[in-house]
C-alpha cells in the first residue's frame, strides 16, 4: 500500500515537474523571441543613429565664435548755444578748444550737435582664448572713424588672487574711469574727468596687475603702467604713466553695500615735467528690492602738474544720487564742481573764472534690460565761450541699445 502510494506520488511529481518544465520552456521561448526582437530593434536604431551623427562640416569652428554685442548710442539735443560756439568752449585752466592752436583736446565725441547725433556704434567682442587667457575688444565706430576703445587680454589661471591685463584698456583708477560711456548714469561725462583727461579718460596701451586679498572683507590692490599718451595730463614721448589704487568694500546687513577707493597716478608731461593725480571715491548702495535701489556715488580728483618749473594745483568733484524705482524707471541728480584752480589764468583777465560748476538731472526708462531711453537736463556754469562766461542749458533725449551677446556689467 505504502509502496503504491509512494509510486503514485513519484509519478505525480514527475508529471507535475514535466508540465512545469514545459511551461518554463515556453516562457523561455517567448522571452528569447522578445530578446531577439529587441536586439534587432537596437541594431536598427544603432544603424539609424550612426547614419545621423556628425554630418557637420569637417573644419567647422562655429561653436568657438566669440560673444558679440552691438551697442548703439544716439541722441536728440537742444542746447541754448550754437553748435559753432559750443565747439569752441573752454573750461578755464583745463579745456582749451581754441581751434587756432593745435590742441588735441578739441574732441567732442558725445552729443556734440544741437539736433541729432549718432554718438557711436560699438562692437563689443569677448571670448575665452584658452585655459589661460580671456580676450576683450570694444570697437567704437564714430560716424567717420573707427576707434579701438579697448582691446586687451586677461589671465585666468594665475595663483594667489593675481590677474594680469595687457593691451589697450581703461585704467581702474577711481570709480568712473573704467566705465564705458553707455554704462554711465548720466549722458555727459563728469566735469572733473572731462577736464583732466578728456572723453576717453585714462585709456592707453599698457599692463595691469591686480590682487584680491584672501580676506572676508573685499580688498583689492592694483598697479598699472601705461604709455601715457594723453597729453591733457601726461603726453611725454616715452612710457611715463604709473597708476596704483586700493579698493575695499563692506556690507552692512543684506541690503547696504559700501565701496571706497584711493588712487594715484604719476606721469610726465610733454615737457617731461611731473604730473601727479590723486583720487578718492565712495559709493553707497541701498537695495530696496530686487529692482529698486538708492545709489550715492562721489569722487574727488586732484592734479598737481609742473609747468615751466611752477606747480599748477587743480581739483574737482562730483556727487550723484540715483534712485532706481523699478525695473523700468530711474531718476538721478548730479552736482559737478571745480574746487581748486591754482593756475595761471591771466589769459582770462576780466572774466570771472570762479565757481565752475554744473547741475544735472535725468529720468530714464528701460522697456527691457537691453534698451534705455533717457531724458537728461544740465545747467552748466563751467564754460567760457568767445571770451565770456556763458551758462549752457542742455536737454537731450538719448537712446542706448545693447543687442546680442552683451556681457553683464560689474557693480
Amino acid at each position: 500500500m505504502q509502496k503504491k502510494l509512494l509510486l503514485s506520488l513519484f509519478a505525480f511529481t514527475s508529471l507535475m515537474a514535466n508540465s512545469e518544465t514545459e511551461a518554463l520552456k515556453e516562457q523561455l521561448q517567448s522571452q528569447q523571441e522578445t530578446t531577439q526582437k529587441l536586439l534587432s530593434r537596437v541594431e536598427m536604431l544603432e544603424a539609424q543613429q550612426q547614419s545621423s551623427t556628425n554630418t557637420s562640416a569637417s573644419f567647422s569652428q562655429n561653436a568657438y565664435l566669440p560673444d558679440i554685442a552691438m551697442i548703439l548710442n544716439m541722441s536728440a539735443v537742444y542746447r541754448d548755444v550754437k553748435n559753432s560756439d559750443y565747439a569752441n568752449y573752454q573750461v578755464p585752466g583745463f579745456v582749451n578748444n581754441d581751434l587756432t592752436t593745435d590742441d588735441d583736446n578739441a574732441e567732442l565725441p558725445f552729443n556734440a550737435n544741437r539736433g541729432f547725433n549718432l554718438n557711436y556704434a560699438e562692437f563689443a567682442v569677448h571670448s575665452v582664448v584658452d585655459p589661460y587667457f580671456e580676450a576683450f575688444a570694444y570697437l567704437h565706430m564714430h560716424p567717420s572713424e573707427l576707434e579701438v576703445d579697448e582691446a586687451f587680454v586677461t589671465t585666468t589661471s594665475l595663483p594667489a588672487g593675481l590677474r594680469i591685463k595687457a593691451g589697450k584698456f581703461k585704467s581702474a583708477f577711481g570709480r568712473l574711469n573704467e566705465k564705458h560711456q553707455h554704462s554711465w548714469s548720466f549722458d555727459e561725462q563728469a566735469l572733473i574727468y572731462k577736464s583732466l583727461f578728456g572723453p576717453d579718460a585714462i585709456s592707453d596701451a599698457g599692463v595691469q596687475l591686480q590682487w584680491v586679498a584672501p580676506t572676508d572683507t573685499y580688498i583689492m590692490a592694483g598697479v598699472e603702467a601705461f604709455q601715457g599718451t594723453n597729453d591733457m595730463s601726461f603726453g611725454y614721448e616715452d612710457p611715463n604713466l604709473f597708476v596704483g589704487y586700493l579698493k575695499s568694500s563692506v556690507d552692512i546687513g543684506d541690503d547696504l553695500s559700501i565701496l571706497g577707493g584711493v588712487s594715484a597716478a604719476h606721469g610726465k608731461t610733454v615737457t617731461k615735467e611731473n604730473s601727479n593725480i590723486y583720487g578718492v571715491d565712495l559709493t553707497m548702495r541701498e537695495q530696496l528690492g530686487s529692482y529698486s535701489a538708492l545709489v550715492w556715488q562721489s569722487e574727488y580728483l586732484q592734479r598737481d602738474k609742473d609747468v615751466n618749473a611752477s606747480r599748477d594745483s587743480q581739483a574737482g568733484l562730483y556727487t550723484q544720487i540715483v534712485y532706481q524705482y523699478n525695473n523700468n524707471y530711474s531718476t538721478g541728480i548730479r552736482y559737478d564742481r571745480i574746487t581748486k584752480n591754482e593756475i595761471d589764468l591771466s589769459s582770462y583777465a576780466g572774466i570771472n573764472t570762479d565757481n565752475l560748476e554744473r547741475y544735472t538731472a535725468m529720468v530714464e526708462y528701460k522697456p527691457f534690460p537691453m534698451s534705455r531711453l533717457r531724458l537728461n537736463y544740465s545747467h552748466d556754469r563751467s564754460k567760457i565761450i568767445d571770451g565770456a562766461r556763458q551758462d549752457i542749458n542742455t536737454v537731450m533725449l538719448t537712446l542706448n541699445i545693447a543687442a546680442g551677446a552683451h556681457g553683464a556689467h560689474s557693480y
Partner: protein
Amino acid sequence: MKKIVLITLVLTTALFASLKVDTTYSTLGAITKKVGGDLVSVTVLGSSKYDPHFIVPKPSLLSKLRRADLLIMNGGGLELGWLPPLIQNAHNRNIQNGAKGFLDISHSINMIDKPVAVSRAFGDVHAQGNPHYSTDPHLVPIIAKAIAEKLMQLDEENADVYQKNLDTFTQKWQEYLKGYDAELRSCKGKKVVQYHELYNYFLKRYGIESIGNIEPLPGIAPSSKHTLELLMKMKRNGVKTILQDVYHEKRTAKFIAQKVDAKVVVIPHDVGSVKGSETLEDFYNMIANRICK
C-alpha cells in the same frame, strides 16, 4: 588696519580644514550641506529674497568667490546677468569655467520648456530651457548626486564620507517623497496662473495646469491689455489660484484676484525665500501646501 588684516588672515586659515563651497542660490546650498556635512563650509551668494536673475554683483561677493574651492551654479542662463563679471574679477583660478572647482548643475538636469526659437523679441527666454528647476523635489536626489560626485573628485580622501552622506540623504528623501507624492495626488488637474514661469517643474511633476502668466513675456512688466486677456482666460477656465513670488510687485495679482474671485498665494522659489521655508523639507512642504490647499 594691519591688525584687522592679520586677524582676518588667521580666521581664514582656521577655516582651512573644510572645503569652501559657494553656491549661487540657497536651495543648492541646502543640498550641498546635506551631502558635504561637516567637511564643507557653504556660502550662498544670492539672497533668496531677490529675483535670481538680478542678484546685485556686490564687491563683497568677490571676496567670497576669491577663496572658494568650488563654485556650484544653477546654470541655464539664470546667472548670466550677474555672475560672469564676478568670476572675472575674483581672480580665483579654481572656479573658472572649465576648472575642477566649477560645477553647473543644469548639465545634470533634463531641462523643460526648451524654446523652439530663441530671440529677445520673445522677452528674456533662456535658450537652454526653463532654469527654475529647484521647485521640483524629485530633482533633489539628482542634484545631490552631481554635487557628491564633484566633492569626491575634489576631496578624494573623504570620498567614502560623501558617498555615505549621499546614500543616507537619498534614502531619506525617497521616503519623504512617497508621502509627499501621495498628498499631491489629489491636486492633479488643478489650474493656476503664475507671475513668471517659476514653478513649471513642480506643476508639471504633479499634473497641475498653468493657464497663463501675469507678465506678458518673460522679464516684461504686466500690461493692461495682457492682464485683461488673462482675466478672460481665467474666467473661462475657472482658475482660482494665482502663484506669486516674493520679489515681483503684488498689485497686479491682487487686482486680478479681486476681479475673478481668486486667491493669491506667495510661493517660495528657493529655500528660505518665505519665512518658514528654511529647510529643504519645509521649503517643498510650503510649495505643496500653498498650491494645493
